[in-house]
């Protein structure tokens, strides 16, 4: 048969087992270039544009809109215009006959592992992937009110070649709901403790939002531990903070009241799904979560300003640093990326809100991979 490329249900995030083809972005017959967005895929956690892995003409939309399919199932077919329809039909039949959803067969040993790690009096929920890879591991730190699933598109993209660790901060996700004084200093000590428990002497640190401030505190207090810093829309570099978001996030207790608050996180408001809101509400119902968020907000954002200026860390930190920021960030203004030392690589994403790792997932993962390669060269 001629040059036929299957388009299959992608795996967004480690936990994804199935996805819904929410809508096709292009009609049958479109000439597609590699990387072009061809469909919107909806999972239990996120709706995301799917970029074509290859070039060719979209000859078939095998999956109808609204169809729920396992990861790896055939959703479309790319081929040149001169490939006969009969060949494409035969290809589809053959693919579907031999397709078996993952989970049934034996998987590689590099499957992501979720585990609980004891750090002092805290239990920290950790997700490790790519742990067979040598080299300095990558540690992902989420922000205020988030959890390790904020990295669901970043972690798998990096763990093909690296050992990647994400975790839930204290008071978040499935970790112990105790935040201490709620300061970035305290959280940084917990992160250092986690690295000790995992027997990791040196790590590339990626921090988002408040996780960025924690990464900076970690670089300040434990410079030997931090091989490089990647700061995604970080706190600590400016002084302004959107308190309407912070207070709204803490106070909202129904999907309806939470929706406009969470929409502040993204430029494309349609990314906020009902399931995302439900997941946040469910987390906030857990004993101790709302009180913990309140403590963090009172400590970190006293008087409506960021209470921990950390720009000076970038003057003294000797490792490579990059800052990634959405230009349409409504929570922490992108102006925080202005006037940084020359050695700092700064990338600004147009039409992107506070969560570039979700909204510009491909770009952010590529920027991180390139940066980490360079940091080690």
């Amino acid at each position, binding site marked *: 048969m001629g040059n036929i490329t299957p388009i299959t249900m992608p795996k967004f995030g480690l936990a994804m087992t199935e996805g819904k083809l929410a809508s096709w972005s292009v009609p049958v017959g479109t000439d597609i270039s590699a990387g072009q967005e061809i469909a919107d895929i909806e999972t239990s956690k996120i709706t995301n544009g799917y970029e074509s892995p290859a070039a060719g003409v979209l000859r078939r939309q095998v999956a109808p809109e609204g169809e729920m399919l396992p990861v790896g199932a055939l959703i479309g077919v790319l081929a040149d215009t001169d490939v006969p329809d009969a060949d494409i039909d035969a290809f589809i039949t053959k693919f579907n006959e031999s397709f078996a959803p993952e989970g049934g067969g034996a998987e590689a040993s590099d499957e992501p592992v979720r585990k609980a790690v004891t750090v002092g009096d805290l239990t920290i929920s950790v997700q490790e992937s790519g742990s067979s890879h040598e080299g300095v591991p990558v540690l992902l730190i989420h922000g205020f009110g988030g959890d390790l699933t904020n990295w669901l598109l970043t972690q798998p993209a990096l763990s093909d070649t690296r050992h990647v660790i994400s975790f839930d901060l204290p008071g978040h996700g*499935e970790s112990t*709901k105790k935040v201490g004084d709620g300061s970035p200093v305290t959280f940084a000590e917990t992160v250092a403790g986690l690295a000790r428990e995992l027997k990791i002497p040196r790590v590339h640190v990626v921090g988002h939002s408040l996780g960025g401030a924690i990464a900076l505190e970690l670089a300040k207090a434990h410079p030997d531990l931090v091989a490089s810093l990647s700061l995604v829309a970080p706190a600590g570099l400016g002084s302004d903070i959107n308190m309407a978001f912070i207070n709204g996030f803490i106070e909202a*207790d*129904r*999907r309806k009241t939470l929706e406009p608050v969470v929409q502040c996180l993204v430029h494309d408001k349609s990314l906020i799904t*009902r399931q995302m809101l439900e997941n946040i509400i*469910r987390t906030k*119902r*857990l*004993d101790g979560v709302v009180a913990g968020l309140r403590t963090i907000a009172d400590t970190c954002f006293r008087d409506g300003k960021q209470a921990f200026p950390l720009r000076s860390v970038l003057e003294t930190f000797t490792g490579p640093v990059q800052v990634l920021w959405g230009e349409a960030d409504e929570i922490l203004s992108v102006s925080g990326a202005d006037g940084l030392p020359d050695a700092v690589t700064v990338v600004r994403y147009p039409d992107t809100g506070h969560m570039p790792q979700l909204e510009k997932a491909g770009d952010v993962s590529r920027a991180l991979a390139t940066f980490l390669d360079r940091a080690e060269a």
Partner: protein
Amino acid sequence: MTKKSFRQAINEALRQEMQRDPRVILMGEDVAGGRGGTSGVKDAWGGVLGVTKGLLTEFGEDRVLDTPISEASYIGAAAGAAATGLRPVAELMFVDFVGCCLDQIMNQAAKFRYMFGGKARTPLVIRAMYGAGFNAAAQHSQALYPLFTHIPGLKVVVPSSPYEAKGLLIEAIRDDDPVIFLENKVMYDDEEDVPDDPYTIPFGEANLTREGDDVTIVAFGRMVNFANQAADRLEKDGISCTVIDPRTTSPLDAATILDCVNETGRLVIVDESSPRCNMATDVAALVAEEAFDALKAPIRRVTPPHTPVPFATVLEKLYVPDVEKIEAAVRSVAAYRVKEEA
């Protein structure tokens, strides 16, 4: 997070609240189970359907009390214990047995706060099984939540899933008023993701399990799952439904029901209890009074017939509302058009 059954979710809620608060105790017929037998094993059953299994071993006989077969005595004792500082969770086994202890619930526990001028608290939870479909015959199959909803001073919870059950039961135990917590006995093996940590779901706050534009379905307890299935089928035919799970019949989240009916203009109510003076009539009256102008079709109620629950399997199946009946009711209101005036 792990998948847990309705039974495990309830067991976990009880265990975590007993760990958190030493005032929480359990009492009821066979909640420990096996006592009095000759095997020497005290924790054999953990309630007739195993819901409280393991709690006797963990918390001991001072906090997990097997009672004599006398609902009047132990429900009365639980009400008194609640009024004097404990937080008892009493199990009535089948809700049908409430006839033996209605005075203790209706005239005592429910009235303490009011009649003692707000000076008394009664943090009492009464758990009981309800519902048909278990082939347990007319005296063990009723859905009596309207009976309790009728009595001021009681809060009434009808959880629709394992996740809902854990959060609502913890809320019930922490509440300072008497709460009737009703578990559909057919649902004990239903499973879904339930967080390991304790959490609460507030009373009087309905949950929209589906959101649509054409028809509002209000459903209670086990019926929520049926309503969701009907809504998913109807969606394929272009009829989109909002499904409301009120979670508690008292307090009732009237505002959410009215908001949704104002949007869709069409209402179906699914209620497993007997059709006269039940939640369906209550919600229908609410909407007729407060959202009359929004209605584009008559309100339809999907309920059992006004008969005792049959024992014969075939008849019992006919008795309980099912997905097909809900679907038919929704189609009829969706197709309804107001006649032009002559």
